[in-house]
């Protein structure tokens, strides 16, 4: 792992690593430090000063039923988006891994949606599900299903889940396909010879061998659903109607940027940071174990 052949000197490497360090310090570490500091203080209403209040912002935050609701909503949203996006992707990857004609074309046609921005996927789904202009939304209303995600919270949540999961499928597809291709043919052939049939073979051989990929993707999808979907949700519903689609990130934005509540917004940021750190730690733990084995 460690190199034996190195270049001499410390000045050149220090200069080389400096730009990255400066950017990291100014735009990551400093703001993160400031968020932690603000989360422990309270601004007086006239903006004249601030007082240290310890963990008061946090205890208020978790005592607030609206915040607890947002946590529950976010967990539900993340879990549904991840399961949907990974399930569809795995199904497609299994079939794209078969020796069929035109599979290179299928792959390209399933990979390109990686390039779609979360906010753009919101625009695309608007034209399908909007009650006035959307193709499917209008059809539903014409056939006696009252569909309007701008007033019905449940429908709004369903819509942002669909738009968010849809955008993530191709990313998962790329990884599942790579995972499937790295399973030695000999293993699946041997199982076939032993008489293991389709579904049984998939469940007992393929799925366990794919579990590192699945686990990696689960973490990535949870992080995606929690953070990157801001564009999708904000473009479609702004977190509404009411708070029906308000995830934790939308709430930080609404409380901080729109309502200018610094203390609470910073405390929320710190809670989110703890969440990301925990997820990243779990992931690296797991990956380290994999490479040791």
């Amino acid at each position, binding site marked *: 792992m460690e190199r034996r052949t190195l270049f001499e000197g410390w000045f050149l490497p220090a200069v080389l690593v400096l730009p*990255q360090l400066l950017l990291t310090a100014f735009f990551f570490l400093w703001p993160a430090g400031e968020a932690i500091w603000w989360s422990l203080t309270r601004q007086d209403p006239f903006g004249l000063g601030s007082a240290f209040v310890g963990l008061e912002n946090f205890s208020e935050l978790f005592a607030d039923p609206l915040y607890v609701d947002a946590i529950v909503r976010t967990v539900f949203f993340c879990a549904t988006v991840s399961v949907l996006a990974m399930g569809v992707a795995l199904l497609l990857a299994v079939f794209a891994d078969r020796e069929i004609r035109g599979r290179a074309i299928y792959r390209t046609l399933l990979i*390109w949606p990686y390039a779609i*921005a979360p906010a753009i996927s919101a625009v695309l789904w608007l034209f*399908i599900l909007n009650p006035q202009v959307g193709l499917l939304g209008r059809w539903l209303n014409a056939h006696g299903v009252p569909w309007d995600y701008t007033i019905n919270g449940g429908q709004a949540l369903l819509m942002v889940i669909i738009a968010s999961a849809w955008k993530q499928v191709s990313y998962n597809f790329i*990884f599942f396909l790579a995972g499937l291709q790295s399973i030695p043919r000999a293993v699946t052939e041997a199982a076939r010879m032993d008489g293991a049939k389709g579904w049984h073979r998939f469940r007992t051989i393929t799925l366990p061998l794919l579990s590192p990929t699945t686990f990696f993707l689960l973490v990535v999808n949870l992080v995606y659903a929690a953070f990157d979907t801001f564009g999708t949700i904000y473009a479609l519903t702004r977190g509404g109607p009411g708070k029906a689609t308000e995830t934790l990130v939308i709430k930080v934005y609404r409380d901080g940027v729109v309502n200018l509540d610094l203390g609470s917004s910073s405390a929320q940021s710190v809670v989110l940071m703890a969440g990301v750190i925990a997820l990243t730690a779990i992931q690296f733990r797991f990956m380290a174990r994999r490479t040791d084995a």
Partner: protein
Amino acid sequence: MSARTDWLAHIVLGLGVLLFALPVWLVIAGSTQDSGAIARGELSLLPSLDLSAYPRVLTHGTMGTKPVWHMLLVSGGMALAIAGGKIVISILSAYAVVFFRFPFRRTAFWLIFITLMLPVEVRIIPTYAVMSDFGLINSFTGLSVPLIASATATLLFRQVFVAIPDELVEAARMDGAGPLRFLRDILIPVSAANIAALFVILFVYGWNQYLWPLLVATDPGLDTIVIGIVKMIGVETQTEWSAVMATAVLALLPPVIVVVLMQHWFVAGLTEGEK
């Protein structure tokens, strides 16, 4: 292998392709239709031959927005600056960390690594405050430079550089190559495929940003195409739907072209980086 056609696979994959193609086809078809008809709910999957919405949005935009060519320019500039910047500073820092031993090397590496855990979304307000302290709100620098720090790219290049055999470094040194020549003449050419893959990922990342530009640029002159289109759908009354759909198509196209053209490198780079 049996010569029989695997119908089930074709059906499942065909449905999958449709699942992605249909929403995009719908906006392509809609961009050629009459806005009034779309507003009345007469959006159809059949396109017409009327492409006039494209030159219209490119040169004029829609009500209250900048022309779309301008937004495309901002998005393109931002995506290129982010992708290029990230690649350059990540190569430099990975090179320093792998090929030199200097004081606080580990500290530097960990400081960079930590940024993985601090995406913009978790530090919205304080980052805005720091930006305004620097006077970077509503500037192109503010839009691009803060997103250039990259732990992911540094980790990837570190992985590539660590795998380079000691003999190669030894040989270069025997030939009298200094550290910078070694970087330029050997290391960068050897990692060209990784650079290409990373470029695709980072270009898409930069192009698709939404929260960051929303936060630091309120000046319409700095609207990216993604910001612009969300503004367009925000005004639901009297929306010029065909113009919105044409803009959506134009917003989609550049990153999709980059991904499709560089698919081979991109897929290999993406899946290898995560090992």
